[in-house]
Each structure stands twice: as C-alpha cells, then as structure tokens.
C-alpha cells in the first residue's frame, strides 16, 4: 500500500511540474493580456518553458513546450479558441520556443548529471574516509573485521560478514553451508564470487594482502549488484582498505612479539646476574656457618655457636624470600597466568598482612584503618596479601622498625582504595615510575639487605591482573604513600543477609 502511494507521488511529481508550468503560463498571460502586446504574452510562455527546462529532461521540456505553443495559439492568437497558423512571425516564435526549451533543458540536464556525479564521488570519498579513520584506530584483526562489516553493511544496504584467515592458515567458517562454500572459493581462488538464488544474492570478495589471502568479505545486497559498476569499485576499495589495515596490525603484532622476546632475553640475563649474586651470598654464609660448627660442637662456646646458627637461619630465610619473589615474578609474567578469584573481604586480607608484621619485633605496631561495610572484592587473596606484605616490607626497610606505618582502606568509585603510608625518606619524584621496574632499586636502598628490586614489580603485576591501579605519592607531612585499587566484586556476589534465607 505504502509503495503504491510512493509510486503515485513520484508519477504526480513527474507530470505535475510540466502541467503546472503550462497552466501557470496560460493563467499569467490571461492576466497580462489587457495591458500587454501579444509578444509579451509569448514571453510569459517562454518564461514558463525556460523555468521548466531548468528542472526537467529534454523530452519532457520539448513536449511541454509544444503543448504550451498550442495553448498559446488556442487562447491568445485570433481567431481565439481555435488552432490556426496565420503569420510567419508567430511560427518563428514557436520554433524559437521549442529550440530554447531543448537547449536549456539539455544544458541543465548536463549540469545536474555533473553535480550528481560530484556528489556521489564526495559521498564515496567520505565513506571510505570514515572507514579508514575507524580502521586506523582499531587495534586487532577482530576489531578490523567488525568495523569493515558494519561499514559495508551500511554502504550497500544488506547484511555483511567479514571472515579472516585463522592462525592455522584456514578461513573462519561462515554460518551457512552455502556461504561456507562461496567464501572458501573466493578466499582460496582470490576471485570475486557472486551467486544469485531465490533466497537472495550472495557476494564474496577475497581480502588479498601482499603475500597471502587474508580473508573474505561477504555481502547480501538488497538492490541488484554488479561487479563492474560504481558499487563494485566501492566494495573493492573497502576490501582493499581492510587488507592494508590487517597487514598493519599483523606487522605491529610481529614487532611487539620481537620486542617481548628481546625484553624476555633482557630479563633472563638480568635475572641470571641477580640470581648468581643474590643467591650465592646467603648460600656461602650458610655453608660457612654450618662447616664452622661441624666436629667442634664441644669446643665452641654455646653463645658463639648460637650466633653462628642464628646467621645460618636468617640467611636461609632471606634465600627463601628471594626464591619466593622470583617464583612470583615468573608466574605473574607468564602469559598463561589466570587468577583464581573468589569473593573476598578486604578486612581479612589487610589484617592477615598486618598481623604478620605485628607478630615480628616491631616497636610501634602497624596501624590499620578499614572503612566499615566495604563490599567484597573479587580477588586471589594470597596475591593481594603479598602486595601488602611487599609494601609493608618496603616501608619497614626504608623507614626503620620503630617508624609509624599505617594502612588505610576505603571505597573509591567502584573499587577499594588501599593506602600504605610511612614517615621514611620518601621517593624522589623522578623515581616514582621507575621503582616499579624490574630490578630497579631506589636511591635509599641499602646495598646488602637481600633486596633485588622485584617487590614493587610483583605488586604492579598483581594489581594489574586484578584490574586495578598502583602508584606512589608523597605522603603529606613527609614519607612515602603507596596506593592501589582493586575493583569490587559483581553485584550478585555481594550478598546481603536478607538474601541468604536465614532464620
């Protein structure tokens, strides 16, 4: 029904303009007739025809001009209300009107065609530009595919699919069996494939890169589609842009992998040098201490023997901490690390870490202040405890055993914000980023305390893995403030007492 109405409107618009022009010319001439010459009336008719010719095709204009001439003759040239060709003058006028109609409409038609072509070019350039902008801001192949599919669907009015080559060198399978066959053939033969069926036309275009076929773009256009047309060129242009973007992403990936490998290599060598020194030193002490006691338990003073044994144990503990840190780093840095997250209460984690220190010989206990009723966080608790232990260990190491150290936890946005403060020497501004790097030790770091510069690196890896942030600031009043965030658990894991069916 609606389409019939639309067709009718179009038809009316097609006939409306010429008929209207002719009628208006007659009416206008009728109004001017009492005051003007016959030539003026002819001019009014000419005006109508020029006006029409500017907007209509040559055929319409010429036909309308002839109709107009007959109307002029019929209404205004005596004998009125009859068709008669009397003098040569009026015949010249008639011929001139037809020629003017033809020439003006031809010229304006050309102009219109040029304008349309210019508009189409502009629209195409604009569409390609928009596609290009979105492609260049996309980071990975999947995103590129999605962006291209969206643009192609919008441009050609019909569902579009982008299938990419998988890492194994095959093409992603399409949803339907027909599309699987067609996409496969487009991809492997690098050919434009078009198949028309009662269910609709399917088009598959290969995405060809410099070295290989990178994928295929599928389109089910609503309107008829020809490869050797403006549309066909447009589709190839889109697909070519996708190919370029895909190759850019692949290249970037390759560069990143190389960088990672280089980074890994650098880590291994620095690890090796750190390990060789920091593992050997405590071991040497332990072996020497043990050897000193063998076979001499009777001769050595008990007090001196105790001293030797004590250093043996403390060196062993230092070694144990170091190995623990090295293992943590290697676990957290491996790409396969997956957190074992559970809903956790912040209180438990903070207290567990703080208790470890307050159990040891601290003159001033570490103060913890935790906001009441914090929502649960989704975390691997032992890892977060390790973050706090590392931070507290640093605070103790740099500010001394009787310094004032405090831990605060409160909600900030959708996360818990934990702050560890000490009144030690603080960290200089230019070092506040560097301290998180592997094997970087601050300028106040003691030379031989068993530290290797991994503590904060581990903290950052853990916090990032939890989707939080960590940073260092200056504490107001002097000292260091390290703060980190961990997002709260999803709402369904925040159980209220009412929801748990208790009685």
């Amino acid at each position, binding site marked *: 029904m609606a389409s019939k109405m639309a067709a009718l409107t179009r038809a009316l618009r097609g006939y409306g303009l010429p008929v209207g022009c002719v009628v208006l010319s007659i009416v206008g001439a009728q109004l001017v007739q009492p005051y003007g010459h016959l030539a003026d009336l002819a001019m009014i008719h000419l005006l109508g025809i020029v006006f029409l010719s500017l907007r209509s095709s040559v055929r319409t204009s010429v036909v309308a001009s002839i109709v107009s001439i007959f109307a002029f003759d019929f209404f205004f040239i005596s004998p009125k209300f009859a068709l008669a060709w009397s003098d040569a003058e009026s015949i010249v006028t008639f011929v001139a009107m037809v020629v003017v109609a033809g020439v003006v409409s031809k010229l304006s038609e050309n102009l219109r065609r040029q304008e349309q072509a210019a508009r189409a070019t502009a629209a195409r350039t604009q569409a390609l530009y928009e596609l290009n902008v979105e492609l260049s801001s996309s980071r990975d192949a999947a995103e590129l595919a999605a962006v291209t599919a969206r643009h192609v669907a919008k441009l050609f009015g019909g569902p579009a699919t982008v299938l990419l080559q998988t890492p194994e060198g095959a093409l992603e399978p399409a949803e339907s069996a027909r599309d699987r066959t067609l996409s496969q053939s487009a991809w492997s033969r690098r050919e434009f494939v078009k198949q028309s069926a009662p269910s609709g036309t399917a088009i598959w275009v290969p995405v060809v890169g410099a070295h290989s076929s990178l994928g295929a773009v599928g389109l089910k256009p609503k309107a008829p589609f020809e490869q050797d047309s403006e549309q066909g060129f447009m589709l190839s242009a889109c697909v070519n842009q996708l190919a370029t973007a895909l190759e850019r992403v692949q290249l970037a990936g390759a560069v990143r992998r190389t960088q990672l490998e280089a980074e890994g290599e650098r880590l291994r060598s620095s690890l090796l040098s750190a390990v060789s020194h920091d593992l050997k030193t405590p071991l040497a002490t332990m072996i020497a201490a043990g050897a000193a006691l063998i076979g001499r338990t009777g001769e050595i003073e008990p007090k001196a023997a105790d001293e030797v044994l004590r250093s043996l144990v403390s060196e*062993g*503990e230092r070694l*144990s901490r170091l190995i*623990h840190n090295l293992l943590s780093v290697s676990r957290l840095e491996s790409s396969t690390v997956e957190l*074992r997250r*559970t*809903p*956790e*209460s912040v*209180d*438990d*984690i903070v*207290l*567990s870490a703080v208790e470890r220190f307050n159990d040891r010989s601290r003159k001033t206990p570490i103060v913890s202040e*935790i906001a009441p009723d914090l929502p*649960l966080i989704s975390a*691997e*608790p*032992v890892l977060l*405890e390790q973050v706090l232990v590392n931070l507290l260990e640093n605070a103790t190491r740099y500010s001394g055993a009787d310094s004032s150290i405090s831990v605060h936890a409160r909600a900030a946005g959708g996360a818990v914000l934990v702050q560890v403060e000490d009144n030690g020497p603080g960290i200089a501004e230019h070092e506040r980023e560097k301290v998180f790097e592997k094997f970087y030790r601050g300028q106040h770091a003691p030379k031989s305390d068993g530290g290797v510069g991994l503590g904060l690196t581990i903290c950052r890896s853990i916090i990032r893995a939890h989707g939080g942030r960590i940073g260092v600031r200056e504490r107001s009043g002097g000292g260091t403030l390290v703060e980190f965030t961990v997002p709260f*658990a999803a709402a369904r*894991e*925040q*159980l*209220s*007492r009412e929801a*748990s069916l*208790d*009685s």
Partner: protein
Amino acid sequence: MNRSLLLVVEDDPEMRSVVSFTLRNYGYDVREAATGAEALSQIQTRTPDAMVLDLGLPDIDGFVVTACVRQEHEFPIIVLSARGEEQHQVRALDSGANDYVTKPFREGELMARIRAALRRPVPVAERRDLNVGDLRIDSTQRRVFVRGKEVTLTRTEFDLLDTLARNADRVVTHRQILRAVWGAEHVDEVHYLRVYIKLLRTKIEQDPARPTRILTTLGVGYRLVSSESIS
C-alpha cells in the same frame, strides 16, 4: 608415659632426618618412610598416632596417599610441603588431611600443629557441651555462651560456629564449611561464608575488626582458636 608414634613420610633424606630429629627432641617416637608405598606398608604393620606427609613423593602422589589412608584410618595427617599455593592446601585438606604446613617451616609452628592434631576430637554422639577456650556451645539446646554470657545466634550462624568448633584449631576449608552448613549444592558460594563469618565475628569477638577467635587462612578457610592453641 605413653609416647605418641609419628610416621614421617619424606623422600629427601636430609629433610627426613631433620624432621625426625626435631620430633624426637620433642619426645615423640618416630618412624620413617621414603616413599608412599613404604608409608602404606608401615601403616599396615603398625598404625601410627599421626603422620607427617610430604606431597611430592617419588612413587605415589601425596594426595593419593592421603585418600588411601582415609579409607581405613582416622589418625591425623599433617601435610608438610614445599608447594605453598593455597589450592594445594585446599586439595590436601579436602582429601582428608588435618593440617598443612609449608616448607620452609618454623619448628614451633610444626610442633603446635602436631599437638593440635593429636588432641582427639570428642565424637559428636557423645558430646553435649563443647568448650573452645572461653566459648561454650550447647549442641542439644543450640545455645552459645561467651565467657558465661549467652549470645543469640541465628540458625546459620550457629551451624557455622558449630562446624568450626568441632574442628577447633584446625583450618576448615571453604568447601568443607559450605557443605556442612549450606549443603553440597552450595560448596562454591564463598560469598555466603564471607557475610556470615562477619556476622558471627560481630557477635563472639571482643573486637570484630581484630578477630582473635575465628582466624582467616587466606584462600583456604577459617580456624576457630581455642585458648591453649598456637599463638
């Protein structure tokens, strides 16, 4: 005096001799096994009062040894392992171990755990009142007293406290608690536990922000502390 017999299962000879030496120093009788198979055959010959078990044995995995022993025996098993990750602790405890100590260990800690494990729990059937430190739990009437003063607990809170009290001084894993209190279909709903532990602490702890009775073992479970236990 009736000395307890401990079986030390450890494949590393140095470690085995250090552990045995320490235990003998504390007055226990000690027998040793270097492999899982050896341990199982020793248990056949003479049942020990407790076993200290390493997980990384050359022949049979420690978890399997635990499960085998649990089919026939009730004696406590204390796992002593270099595998520090909580999931190993949870697995060991869930498969029947009573406690878990990580290497490197402190002598005092190991001895305290062994002492706690050797205190035989009173069978449920014979028990009406349960005293854990200054907590008294009356199971028949479902009433709880803290230092002689009664506190009112909801049904779930009581079940939770009762479960922890029956295993006083031992870490009870999240799954074990959830199974006992909420039922087998809720063993993964750790958030129930977080909420109820908090509620229970506000009722029975002197300072709920610094709990001293119900202690958290991160990533593993909770432990109810009796006054005479590990400090």
